[in-house]
């Protein structure tokens, strides 16, 4: 293809990735797989931000991406800690087993 990538292509790619992430979160039973699908959704949003920032020559898009990445890293650390703590208690990584809040 000899035309430069349009903005709508990047947005479409981001939407598709986000959709795949949503499907993954709904389908998967393993809690770590669900976590990874959530990270995929975050990345799809990052892609949208960077695409807009590049096309409109505005740096605030990339700054926001930077902050989103930081937040995602913090959330990953704490989330994985929680997952390990749950696993210590319940001996199973199935989300359905953890769906009752009683220990």
């Amino acid at each position, binding site marked *: 293809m000899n035309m430069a990538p349009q903005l709508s292509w990047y947005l479409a790619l981001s939407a598709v990735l986000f959709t795949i992430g949503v499907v993954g979160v709904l389908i998967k039973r393993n809690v770590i797989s669900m976590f990874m699908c959530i990270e995929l959704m975050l990345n799809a949003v990052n892609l949208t931000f960077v695409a807009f920032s*590049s096309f409109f020559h505005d740096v605030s898009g990339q700054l926001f991406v930077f902050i989103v990445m930081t937040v995602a890293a913090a*959330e990953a*650390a704490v989330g994985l800690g929680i997952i390990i703590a749950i696993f210590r208690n319940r001996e199973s990584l199935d989300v359905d087993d953890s769906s009752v809040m009683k220990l």
Partner: protein
Amino acid sequence: MAIGCAISMVAQRNPLYSAISLIGVFISLACLYVTLSAPFIAAVQVIVYAGAIMVLVVFVIMLLNIDQAECQPRRLRSLVPIAVGLAAVLFAEAAFMIFFVQASAATPAHTVSDVGLTSSIGTGLFTSYLLPFEITSILLLMAIVGAMSLARRGGLIPPQAQGGETGTSNPE
């Protein structure tokens, strides 16, 4: 390629393969960021996401020794058609956007932008976006404290502190 890796991630049963596919997604996104003239974000994506977060995930997978996921869910099968329906709606939306929305006058062409340079990000981060920057530091501090408290074997509050709190509440 990003889509291929994403689909493979969702479709794989073994969570380690899902993790590897997700690393593929991150790296392909990093390449896309470079074509969007955002080299700093691309490098940070590789360092933070693909390099650190996924290493944590791979560690957890290895520590907890997860093998193949169990077979079809027993109780929540009703969720699968909902997922498929939702996916169909979102795909329809994306298709609508690609094919039917004409490029309006406000949509710019893609020229090589110069906002992705590290110096401009640094300038923006320290002048007009200083408050989010500081709040992010506090957030990271909270995350560190949270992770450390989760990892302690004895729990966050040591047991002897709970004995003296029962009879001291005065209703006012």
